[in-house]
């Protein structure tokens, strides 16, 4: 007996699998690999949060929560956004606790898009942006940012891609994979552009606490009435596996997102929400220490790359550098594959994050200093 022969979803079938997969399989099959390919912190979740979750499990926090998520956690999230950035969302009807930014982004796009609506996606960008737009029936419109301009969200580049079908601009700051953090001035200019053309700004701010040149600038500061703020705990608090994040949006859109969420996910994991709340309450010192540690590695690693002739704009946030490998004459794929097979260092080819990533590779410095130093030695040997 064979499965039904009628075609699967054309929308889904048309999306290729992530290019990360190939390198994952290759790296997994090898011994002694130093991986700079990991998109998550190397620190464990702060113990206070883990302990709170253990306690919560012992005391029966194994149920659903309200669809929106624990009110205390939503209040903590919106108060925190207000305290740190002066951005005001209402806990009651403008904030939703989600299973990570991934779910938040999916909800946003599905609530927002009609078939054929275009979403401008500046590249290089996180691997899920364009597929998620397509899954939601929209049309992703990639635009290449300029590495020579530190991947600034240049309104001229973005503006050139706007058509009458454009609905939103989707971007991450600080960015995975480039580590670039957008300035207040550029976000103001982007907000002006969005107002002029009546667009939404979909702002992925999962790395908001991991900034190294002063405090993070949220997009919502420039245009609160048209910004969806996507955030969470995965990167800042080293809580990737807990699957808990949030999305904040103006009320009518947030309510539509709530509608999808209540019929699909129902709620983010209860014990994870409790852990996230505890992290927000007690783990600021842990975050400060992690940020200080990332900052030291960032300096050491970018300097090391520069000395090897692999230039990169000094990243302002997240835990990635995105050096140019143009001086080696290799393509991104050739470089990444050669480095892995010859010297056992895993990096991710820039093309995984869009065609404009060609000539670059993504290196994560969420790895201990001695390993970063060893990786630099191996890279030096590889390109010698």
């Amino acid at each position, binding site marked *: 007996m064979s499965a039904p022969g009628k075609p699967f979803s054309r929308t889904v079938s048309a999306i290729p699998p992530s290019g990360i997969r190939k390198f994952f399989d290759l790296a997994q099959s090898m011994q002694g690999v130093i991986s700079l390919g990991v998109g998550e912190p190397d620190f464990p979740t702060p113990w206070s949060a883990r302990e709170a979750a253990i306690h919560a499990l012992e005391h029966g926090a194994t149920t659903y929560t309200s669809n929106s998520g624990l009110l205390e956690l939503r209040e903590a999230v919106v108060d925190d956004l207000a305290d740190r950035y002066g951005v005001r969302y209402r806990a009651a009807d403008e904030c939703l606790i989600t299973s990570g930014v991934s779910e938040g982004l999916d909800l946003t796009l599905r609530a927002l898009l009609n078939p054929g609506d275009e979403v401008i996606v500046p590249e290089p960008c996180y691997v899920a942006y364009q597929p998620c737009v397509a899954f939601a029936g929209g049309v992703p419109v990639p635009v290449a940012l300029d590495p020579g301009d530190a991947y600034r969200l240049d309104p001229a580049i973005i503006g050139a891609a706007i058509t009458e079908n454009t609905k939103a601009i989707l971007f991450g700051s600080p960015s995975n994979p480039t580590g670039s953090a957008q300035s207040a001035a550029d976000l103001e200019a982007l907000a002006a552009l969005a107002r002029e053309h009546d667009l939404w700004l979909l702002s992925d701010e999962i790395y908001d606490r991991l900034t190294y040149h002063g405090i993070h600038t949220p997009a919502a500061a420039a245009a609160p009435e048209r910004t969806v703020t996507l955030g969470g705990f995965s990167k800042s608090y080293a809580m990737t596996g807990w699957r808990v994040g949030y999305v904040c949006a103006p009320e009518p859109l947030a309510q539509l997102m709530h509608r999808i969420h209540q019929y699909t996910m129902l709620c983010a994991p209860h014990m994870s929400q409790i852990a996230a709340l505890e992290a927000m309450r007690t783990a600021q010192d842990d975050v400060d220490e992690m940020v200080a540690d990332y900052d*030291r590695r960032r300096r050491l690693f970018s300097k090391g790359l520069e000395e090897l002739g692999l230039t990169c704009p000094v990243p302002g946030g997240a835990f990635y550098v995105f050096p140019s490998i143009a001086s080696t004459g290799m393509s991104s794929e050739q470089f990444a594959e050669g480095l892995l097979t010859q010297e056992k260092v895993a990096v991710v080819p820039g093309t995984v994050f869009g065609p404009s990533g060609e000539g670059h590779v993504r290196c994560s410095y969420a790895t201990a200093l001695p390993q970063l130093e060893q990786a630099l030695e191996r890279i030096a040997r590889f390109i010698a």
Partner: protein
Amino acid sequence: MREILTVLESDAHASAERIATLTGIDEATVREHIAAWEASGVIRRYKAVIDWDRYGDQRVTAFVDVTVAPERGRGFDDVAERIARFREIRAVHLVSGAQDLRVEVEGASMKEVADFVAQKLSGIDRVTATSTHFLLRRYKDDGQLLTDPEPDQRLSVTP
């Protein structure tokens, strides 16, 4: 500038050049500050954290709670300083609670530590009582977990 001390605290071995790389502060400034801190006593000394058990040295540590009859006008200071000068004493702290001083004693054997407490420590003027607790196992010391680190469970390449 605090960053310089943070680096040194976790790696006393770090050269000025390395500290400069890690902190973004230029090397000459790093040297200047370290020299000034060494002179003023902000940096007390450079120390390696050694796991003597792992090296194979058997050492015995005891925490001793000491009750003291304080001295008029001097409080606990004179007695605390007298105790602190013994080579066997690793640490002396004045604490709140039923006892007055909590001291850490180290010796080559239980007998050596016990003899020290019985013959030296409890014999000091104004020491009226001692209560000795032998250390059985260290789990965390000086802010450093001594248990095995948690294995890295991350996948080797993730988005």
